[in-house]
């Protein structure tokens, strides 16, 4: 961990001359200007003494908008820039980068949000909105006057990645990174590599054997001298930030089958419905720990199947009600019946496949999970996986009747629609149900031809009540994230309302998380198939390669700074700090006297400001967000 505390350059004396600020007000193509009178705003803002220029533009973020700022910086010798537009989340960085491009300090920039906080929030009140925009901009100008040039914090990037999870996603990410010459440590909790893909027989839409796909991936990873694999291992602690994490790994306690921590020998064995196992040449005792230093961490911890509640579609009450993963095993030559479609020792003659079990659930109809929430999301792979199974049954056992009970058939991917077409062609019958009247699975009487029947109100035939006598019911269970609450705590991972890990931006930045240096791969983020998992894993690898490739990473300089002249070493700030190692008390010598002072370790500080809030002497400030700057903003808002 770098001990050195980085401080920003001593600010030049900006008080000498009143700084000149340029203000740029965005129409946002009407998003703002339809409500806010941007022309009036510009005129009013221009009256603030520190404002040298105030201009408007249709899209400040567009190239001409950015160029306008750069031109003014030169021509008008501006000392600071304020852009009033959308949320800073979207474009603060855009404008900082523009300043950087023009060789100006990117931190002499302040952003005013007049879209989310003004035009969208007050669209019924144009006059009020215009007035609010003026106040917010005045506050931003007040802050801009007091901004100081800052320098990003540079941290050496340790050229190594930790990948957590050894399914297709983790394996793919590890291999792509290693090919770029980076070291990788792959940590898998179970004794096997391959994850849920190892539970499949043939994969849609290529019908390749899952075993072949996995063996190829695992062999590449195992043969790769840049990659260390630990199976039966889990992460128990982590410290540090992007560029320099230390991850503590431990043998999974109590798992006797686990191979333990140890670099693994090169022989790969695939076991159907378990995964790839690789003999460990260095067995070790449970509880062994090791530390891995790395620059980034990729989380690829995958999914688990939704477990139907007892009684849900008679699951658990009848052995003839099974899940889709069970059916896949049953159909496999490596399965319990050697691939014969038999249940309870008898060949299956009629099978019902019920879609959306544990997916697309509706509040008030479905029973929630322990956290009180239903699985409202679509699990994305089950439709095609179910159609694939239906086709396989029809191909191999043409006399078996297959009924599918569905809500919408979501065969969206390349080659998926074919399965739907073919299933219909082969005589699979489709019934459509609505969530408020789902199919009922019931046992039949002693004289019935089949032990079970499925009743449904089929919306495709006038909402008629139909009955299908069957001897097997298969529930297409959805996906849920693996329980990784321990990792969530260790890394402070953001989790969405669907319990899957949450990306920074659901459109533009799908593999990054809000915590810098933590990346996402595969189904830990949400349901998806192997193709999509591997694509996201490779995309995550690319982000990791960017972070580690330069040898250093730059962090935002918005970190706490202690003014030693004001600090009396009371330590109140330490109690508030929630980032290990970010703040400590230390004895320093000042003019021959040893004094106790708080000291910030910049790379570990997240700039949350808790310390600044409790300091009784205003001795701590967050750079770029100082107390003086806040004061001036409040004054500016109140002054109007």
């Amino acid at each position: 961990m770098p001990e050195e505390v980085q401080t920003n350059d001593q600010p030049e004396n900006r008080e000498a001359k009143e700084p000149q600020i340029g203000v740029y007000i965005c129409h946002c193509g009407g998003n703002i200007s339809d409500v806010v009178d941007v022309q009036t705003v510009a005129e009013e803002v221009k009256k603030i003494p520190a404002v040298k220029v105030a201009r408007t533009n249709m899209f400040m973020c567009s190239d001409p908008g950015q160029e306008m700022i750069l031109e003014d910086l030169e021509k008008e010798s501006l000392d600071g820039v304020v852009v009033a537009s959308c949320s800073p989340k979207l474009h603060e960085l855009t404008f900082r980068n523009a300043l950087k491009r023009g060789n100006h300090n990117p931190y002499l920039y302040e952003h005013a949000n007049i879209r989310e906080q003004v035009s969208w929030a007050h669209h019924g009140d144009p006059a009020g909105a215009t007035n609010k925009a003026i106040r917010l901009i005045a506050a931003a100008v007040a802050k801009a006057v007091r901004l100081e040039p800052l320098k990003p914090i540079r941290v050496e990037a340790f050229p190594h990645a930790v990948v957590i999870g050894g399914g297709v996603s983790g394996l793919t990410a590890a291999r792509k990174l290693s090919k770029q010459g980076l070291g990788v440590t792959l940590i898998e909790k179970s004794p096997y590599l391959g994850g849920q893909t190892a539970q499949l027989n043939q994969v849609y839409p290529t019908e390749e054997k899952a075993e072949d796909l996995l063996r190829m991936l695992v062999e590449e990873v195992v043969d790769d001298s840049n990659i260390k694999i630990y199976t039966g291992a889990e992460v128990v602690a982590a410290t540090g930030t992007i560029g320099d994490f230390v991850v503590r790994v431990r043998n999974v306690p109590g798992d006797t089958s686990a191979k333990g921590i140890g670099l693994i020998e090169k022989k790969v064995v695939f076991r159907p419905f378990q995964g790839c196992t690789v003999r460990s040449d260095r067995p070790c005792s449970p509880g062994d720990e090791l530390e891995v230093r790395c620059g980034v961490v990729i989380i690829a911890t995958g999914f688990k199947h939704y477990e139907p509640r007892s009684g849900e579609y008679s699951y658990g009450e009848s052995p003839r009600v099974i899940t889709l993963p069970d059916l896949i095993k049953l159909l496999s030559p490596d399965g319990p019946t050697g691939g014969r479609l038999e249940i309870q020792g008898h060949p299956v003659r009629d099978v019902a496949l019920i879609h959306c079990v544990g997916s697309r659930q509706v509040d008030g109809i479905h029973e929630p999970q322990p956290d009180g929430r239903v699985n409202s999301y679509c699990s994305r792979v089950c439709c095609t996986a179910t159609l694939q199974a239906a086709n396989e049954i029809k191909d191999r056992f043409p006399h078996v009747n297959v009924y599918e009970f569905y809500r919408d058939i979501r065969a969206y991917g390349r080659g998926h629609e074919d399965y739907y077409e073919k299933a219909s062609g082969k005589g699979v019958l489709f019934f459509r149900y609505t969530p408020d009247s789902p199919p009922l699975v019931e046992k039949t009487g002693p004289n019935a031809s089949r032990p079970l029947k499925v009743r449904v109100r089929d919306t495709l035939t006038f909402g008629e009540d139909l009955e299908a006598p069957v001897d097997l019911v298969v529930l297409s269970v959805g996906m849920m994230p693996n329980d990784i609450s321990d990792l969530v705590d260790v890394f402070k991972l953001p989790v969405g309302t669907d319990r899957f890990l949450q990306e920074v931006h659901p459109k533009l930045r799908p593999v990054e998380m809000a915590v810098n240096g933590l990346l996402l791969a595969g189904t830990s983020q949400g349901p998806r198939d192997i193709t999509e998992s591997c694509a996201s894993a490779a995309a995550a690898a690319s982000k990791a390669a960017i972070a580690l490739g330069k040898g250093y990473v730059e962090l935002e300089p918005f970190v706490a700074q202690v003014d030693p002249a004001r600090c009396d070493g009371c330590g109140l700030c330490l109690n508030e700090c929630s980032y290990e190692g970010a703040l400590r008390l230390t004895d320093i010598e000042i003019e021959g006297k040893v004094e106790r002072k708080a000291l910030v370790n910049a790379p570990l500080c997240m700039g949350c400001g808790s310390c600044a809030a409790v300091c009784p002497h205003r001795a701590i400030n967050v750079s770029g967000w100082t107390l003086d700057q806040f004061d001036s903003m409040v004054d500016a808002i109140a002054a109007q």
Partner: protein
Amino acid sequence: MNTQTIQCDALVVGGGIGGLTSALELADQGYQVAVVEREASIGGVMIALSKVFPTLDCASCITTPRMAAAAHHPNIEILTCTEVKSITRDGRLFAANLMKKPRYVDEKLCIGCRQCEYVCPVDVPHEFEGGLGARKAIYVPFATAIPQKAVLDAENCMLCGSCEKVCPSQAVDYFQRPEEIKVQAKSVVLATGFQLLPKDSKKEYSPPGSLNILSALQMERLLSPHGPYGRVIRPSDGKVPDSIAYVQCAGSRDKSLGIPYCSRVCCMYAIKQAMLLSGALPLADVTIYYMDIRAFGKGYEEFYENAKAMGIQFVKAKVARIAEDEEHNLNVRVELMEEDGRVEERAHDLVVLSLGMVPGCNPEEFVPVMRDDDGFVKCASPKTAPALTDQPGILVAGTAAGPKDIVDTIAKAGAAAMEAANYMRGLELDLSAVTEAVTGEEERAAERAAS
């Protein structure tokens, strides 16, 4: 003809969100990238959208920063108005022949002031606005275009000379010629995107003389805050529509058009547009005629549920035919697939066709990669390495390999960048292996000579 030569690590064909993402990922890894875009601006389809599902972020707000980032990246060179003539393997490299079409405006001189646009007397339907608005014969492609440079459309120009006279930087050049550009690259990323099927592909849905049947992309423009009319009105008479219908799978999952596949985004964009319409026209009824609602992505099902709660009508039905009367009101003949399966004629003021996605171009014409039955680029390892084509060193990103939404396009573009980097790294290692082998050989020869 002038010939310019560019040497780079990766050549990205297509400057949509997919191509730009691949380019940025590679450039951030330190590779030199050239992006070729046949249009006058980068941005692809995404820059023309109104808002994006499921976040309802405004599309230009999230596209422009990425466009600007690519345009200003020190490792990226962007070539607009440029077509690829051929890409061939040249030893360990790829040799590409590009043709820069004349803009009739000197890109270096043009300052994007639009004076030329203001004086040009010619009005032509604006492609960017789906033909709904007008543009001039010389024009900056759209407000957020990158580069912000005018382009002259020679087909419609009357050569009146006004633009040349008014141009403050003498950028107009009626005599510009096509330019040849040669590129040497170590790898190629195909990000040539998609197009919508033409509106008149299905004659049942395109009665002659119809004005009020729009493509989904035209509706995107109508819904844009800075769109052609600034609000949603019927093209025929400017009336605010009271009743709007969406026809789903208009050219997807339809064997009669040779498009058996699902276009993957149409359900979601129809739902999105319906929600935006409900916001813009609170009194209007919006009906979506569909086969299956495919809201499969992260947060999409919840988005669909919200739309239902907002009162948007979802009707499982097949649309047999659309007719438009003299007043340009529409009659949609639907076969209900639920209730009693009856056939009905339903009146609407405006109909939007959720048209299928077809490839943005046929790359086989210029590069030796294979296409799949669906016409999109074939993936060599579709499951575990979906960015690989059948040609080593040529990768595929975004919708060039089949319909996708933006987030899947971006993931795949990141994957393509990673594969390209892996491939180029492999080249370097091979090269050093060769050098090592050569030095080894030389050393042995020297030893032999010495003994």
